Each structure stands twice: as C-alpha cells, then as structure tokens.
C-alpha cells in the first residue's frame, strides 16, 4: 500500500529546473498523485459498486468484473430497500439522528456558557478550575465506562466511612483556616455538625448511602446524550474559552456600559462572534457521535429498536457476515451523512478535526 508513494517521493529529484525537466517532473508528480488517489479510492469504490449489484452477481464474480462486461444486467436497488426495511437500517438511521443531534447541541450549550464564564467573568478559583477542566482532556473514554455503567444500572452509593472521612477533613480544614484568621466560624460549625451527624449514622450500623438514585437509565437515548456530553465537554470548553477570550474586550466593555448584563452579552455578542469555532466543534462532535460504536454498545445496549446505525452495521456483520449485498448497502447508508457533511462543510470540517483530534 505504501511502497509506491515512498518510491515516487524519492524519484522526484529535479535538478535546477530547465523547461524540459520541469515538464517531465510535473508529469511524474501527476502520475504519483494519481496512483495514490486511486489506491485510496478503490476500497470505497468496491463497496459502492457492490451495493448496487444483484446478490447472484456479487456471489459469483468480483466487483471489478463489471468494468469488463458493462452490458450485463446485474444492477439493482433492492439491496438498499432490503437493508432499510428488513435489516432495520431505516429505524437505526433515525435513532442515530436522535442520539447525534442532542449529543452535539447539549455539550456545545453547556460549554459555551462555561467558556464565557471562564473568559469574561471574575470569580474565585477561575484559573485553577479552567486548568483542571483542560487537564481532563487526558482522561480516555475507557476510564469512564465501567463506573458510569454501574451508576446507570444500580445507582451511586458511597460508603458511610468515606463520607465521614470527607466531612471530618473539611471540619479540620475549616478549623485550621479559623486559627489562621482566614475564615469564619460558620463553616466550622456547619461541617462539624454534618460530621457528627454522619458519625451517628455510621455508628447506627448503616454501611452506605445512596447519592445517585437507581434510575434504570441504561438503554435510553438520555444515557448516551449525557455520556457524550461529559466526554465532549473538556475539549469544547478549551476551544471555546480560547476563542472567546481572544474577542476584543472593548466590545464586551461597551456593552456593559450600555447596561447589558452577562446573559445578554453572551447571547447577543459572544455567541454570534464565536460562530466559526462553534461550527468547527459542532461538526467534529457530530461526526464523532455519528461514527461512535463504543459508547452506543455500552450505554444504549442491544435492544433492536434503539440501535444506532453503527450498532446495526456491527450486528449485521456478526449475524450475516457473508451477505455482502446487505453489508455493502448498509455500510454505504451509514457513510452517506458524514460524507455529505464532509463535502458541504469541508472548511469547518478540517478545522474541527484538527482541533478536535486529541479528544479522549
């Protein structure tokens, strides 16, 4: 796959370009580029051609033979109608939309508010908080799967001794602050009372308390939206904060002088001015979620009616792995939307991918 490229790169060593040399090298370059492009396109081309061939034809001859006997009558659309209805891809396509659109809009909304806060509001611990948020970029998706699945299926419970420890530590911290003359009496009293209360609960024999109720979330779109929101937020906040922070402060100040509050400045100024970065992130997140398999199989589960398109494709692959008429048509259906987005919004697309490629 790669040998031709590197060879071509090496053969392209023009001396000081005379006219002839220039034409020659140009011709070589064109050839090399064409070869690579063709190599890169063949896999997709094979898929596309096969998806329009009749089952009988697919199973008796390679797809490349269509170019040598063009006059045959093996073309059909029935692969697509089959896969959309019988294999449930129509349903899955809708489910993918239902998962993808909110999973894109929700994180962008939350991140935009947070990014504005980090860029234009002052509050204690702002910089530290932002650094911590950015640091979360390092955490891979895989780190979150097991605990979140448990949270979804059986709720969140915390051992009482842990809770006791946390509040005891908070009480001691409050006491230390008080002695140094930094804080008031109230935090000490509040934390002290809570610590004692938790201590009594612990002594009375209770072992764990429920902090997150068992909502049986697993298998719903909501479970997937929230998961994608959580996983997408660090990157979104990082990108949006940097962009909003670079907007000229004079604009924000003059709006404040005109009596606009932060909410107005946010909706009327910050959002419209940040459209390029919002679009880049939106496209990146949209494609990420649309093409995602891992989050879907874990949080959406195996219910056929809820399957997103990548799950449907995987399912088809494992149950009817040799029915290429269905597999190729299904794969093509799953690619249509991202490829269309790619061609329509190429500029934003490239920027979004570049910016978003480090996402966990």
């Amino acid at each position, binding site marked *: *796959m*790669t040998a031709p*490229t*590197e060879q*071509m*790169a090496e053969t392209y*060593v023009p001396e*000081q370009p005379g006219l002839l040399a220039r034409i020659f090298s140009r011709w070589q370059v064109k050839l090399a*580029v064409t070869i*690579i492009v063709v190599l890169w396109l063949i*896999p*997709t081309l094979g898929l596309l051609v*096969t998806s329009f061939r009749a089952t009988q034809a697919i199973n008796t*001859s*390679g797809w490349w033979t269509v170019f040598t006997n063009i006059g045959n009558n093996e073309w059909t659309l029935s692969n697509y109608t089959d896969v959309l209805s019988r294999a449930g891809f129509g349903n899955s396509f809708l489910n993918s939309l*239902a998962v993808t659109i909110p999973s894109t*809009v*929700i994180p962008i*909304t939350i991140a935009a*508010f*947070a990014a504005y*806060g980090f860029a234009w*509001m*002052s*509050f*204690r611990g702002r910089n530290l908080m*932002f*650094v911590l948020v950015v640091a979360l970029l*390092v955490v*891979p998706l*895989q780190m*979150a*799967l*097991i*605990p979140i699945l448990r949270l979804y299926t059986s709720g969140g419970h915390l051992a009482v001794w842990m809770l006791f420890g946390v509040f005891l530590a908070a009480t001691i911290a409050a006491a230390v602050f008080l002695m140094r003359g930094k804080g008031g*009496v109230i*935090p000490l009293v509040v934390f002290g009372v809570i610590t004692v209360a938790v201590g009594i609960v612990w002594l009375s024999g209770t072992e764990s308390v429920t902090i997150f109720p068992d909502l049986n979330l697993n298998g*719903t*779109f*909501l479970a997937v*939206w*929230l*998961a994608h929101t959580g*996983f997408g937020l660090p990157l979104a906040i990082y990108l949006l904060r940097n*962009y909003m*922070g670079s907007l000229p*402060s004079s604009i*924000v100040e003059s709006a*404040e002088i005109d009596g606009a*509050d932060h909410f107005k400045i946010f909706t009327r100024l910050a959002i419209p001015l940040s459209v390029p970065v919002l679009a880049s992130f939106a496209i990146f997140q949209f494609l990420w979620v649309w*093409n995602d398999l891992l989050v879907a199989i874990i949080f959406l589960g195996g219910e056929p009616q809820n399957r997103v398109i990548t799950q449907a494709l*995987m399912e088809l692959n494992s149950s009817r792995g040799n029915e290429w008429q269905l597999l190729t048509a*299904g794969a093509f259906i*799953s*690619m249509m939307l991202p*490829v269309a*987005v*790619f*061609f329509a919004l190429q500029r934003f697309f*490239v920027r979004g991918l570049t910016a978003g490629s480090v996402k966990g």
Partner: protein
Amino acid sequence: MTTPPILDQEPADQRRFGDEADEARGIGVAALRFGAALVVPILSFVALWLTFEFLRNTEANRLIVVTVAVLVGVVGVWLLYWGMDLVINQLPDHVAAGIRPAVFVGPAIVVLSVYLVYPAINTFLISFKEGDDFVWFKNYGTIFTNSSYLVSIRNSILWVIVVPAVAVAVGLAFSVLADKLGKRSESIAKSLIFLPMAISFVGASIVWRFIYSFRPPGFGEQIGLLNGIWSGLLGNEPIAWLLQEPWNNLYLMIILIWLQTGFAMVILSSAIKAVPDDLLEAARIDGATEWQVFWRVVFPSISSTIVVVTTTIVITVWKVFDIVWVMTGGKFGTSVIAERMITEFFLFRNAGIGAALAVILFIAVIPIMIINVRKFRQQEAAR
C-alpha cells in the same frame, strides 16, 4: 484556529463579586452559588428523564419518538439556562452578580465531575479489586504475566509504532507531491485522500473485510479484491488473510492507516504552505536541489507539526477498539488493549481486569498528551 496560550489575559473587569465583607451574607451567597450550579443540571436531568419515562411507555411511531427526543434535548437545555437567568435577575444586584458565574460555569463542572472525575477515580479503585475484595496489584500482575494479555500489549505497541509512522510518511509524501500540482487538482486530490476521515471505523472495517474476504478453493470465485489479485491474477492458492498470524495484525493496521493518512496529510500540507517562499527561493538560488530544499529547509520548519500529528495519531491508535472488534473480535492473535478491556468487562464480567487495562491505557497516554499539547502551543505561537 488561533489558540492563545491558556489564561493569557484577564478580562478588563476585575471587580471581585465574591469578596463580601459580611461573613453571614458570604455564606448565604456561597450556598446560593452552590445551589445555582446544581439546579440547571438537576432540573434538566429530571425533565429529560421524565420525558424518557413517558417515551419508554408509549408505543408511538419511531419518527415521533425521535422528534420529541431531539426537541426536548435541544430546546430544553437552553430554556433552563434562560429560566435560571430570569430567576437570578429577581435577586438584589450584588447577590445576583455573585451567583451568576456559578450559573454559567457550574453546570459544566457538575457534568464533568459526574462523567469524568468520579469515574476516573472509581476506575482506579476498581482496578485494585477482584469482585468486592481488595487485592492490590493482583490484576496488574495478571496482565503483565499472562501470555494472552501480553499478546494484546504487544499488538497495541505494534499498532502504535506502525500506523503513525506509515500514515505520517505517506501523508507527508503526498502533501509534498500535491503541493507541486495546480491549485484545483491539488484540492481535489487532497479531498479524496481525506475523505475516509468521515467514515466510521465500523464502516471502514466492512469496506476492508470485503477486500480481505476469502473462499476456500472449490467454493466459487474469489470476490475479495486481494484474493482476486493474489489467486485470480497471479494464480496462487487463495489465502484467508485475517487468519494469518501474526500478519493479520498488519492487515488490520492498514485500515487505520487508510483512515488516518488524510488527517496527517491535511495538517502537514498546511504547515508546508506556511514555510516562507523567500526561504525556499534563497535555497534554490544557492543551488540546492529540490531534495535538499525539502530535507534542509522544509522538513526542519515543519518538524513540530510532524510531532503534533504523530502524537495525535498515536493517541487515536492507542485507543482503537472498533476495528479489531468488528474484523476479528480480538481472535487469531489480533487483540489490542482497548478492545481487550471491553471484552474483559462486558463479555467475561471481569471488572477488575477491565479497569486495570483502562488505567494502563490512561497512564500511557499522559506523557504523549503532554508532548502533544506543548508542541501544539509552540506551533501555534510560532504562526
């Protein structure tokens, strides 16, 4: 994309709303802030949850279910922020000013705590457990001594070396070549190489499974392209490519190379275009050949971009799951860490080992991420 260094600038407005003199009022505001941060996420969660309980219990048409879900998800969150703002505006000005940052930043912090911070800590804890028993490093010991896990680790390391190296080399060669074409044909050629980036790993796996497909001799004509060439054109015995240990790993890697080369190419191409023309002209006037111009002028000036692209692809490759899962299910000696983790947890119900594998993934990523972010900022600063 301009990315100013983090925290470069303080907003002009530096009044600190939080510094209330009055202790009791300070506590009150702090409590309100805390509450405000929680209200949006909790309210939106409850609203969404109720909708889903409703949807779950209806036998409605799929299209309606989907539409309702999308509307609730999209509009709901905005409405909540807006509602919070209305409520806060009813409060006295100085109190409102103190709470507002919590409404803006708080929901994000809450979601991140629940979905990343808490799970990360919890995964660490689970990795030291076997069932409910605390077993210290036993899971890690198992992973680093049992040969089947070692195969996964070996494969992951191979992936991380081969895929980025080839993808970056081909991407670089292609962007240098395409740079010498006319503007129009360059952009078309680049789009076509980049196109696979839009395809899901699952879709790409189907594409390539078809290419590698195999029929034993006597069971009909080969319909996979590779066997078509290998046995149809060259007359060899057909080969079941995906069963050929250890080469099948390479065949799986080709899929990811196919997907990632476009990414390397696009970024490297824009870096090459950013090399100043005067520099190239000066080198050419001094009698450098194109080959020398590339290695002595272009290559050094894009080296930090090459590092960013390589590390980025390394991270993607390190976490690859779908390709192996769809192509071989990790069988035939092709399993990798990220895929193994899912298998352990969801098929073998072995949470401890799964968590330990996740932790290994995480720890290995940290240094690469640090290099990546550092170089990324250097490169942006140099522009």
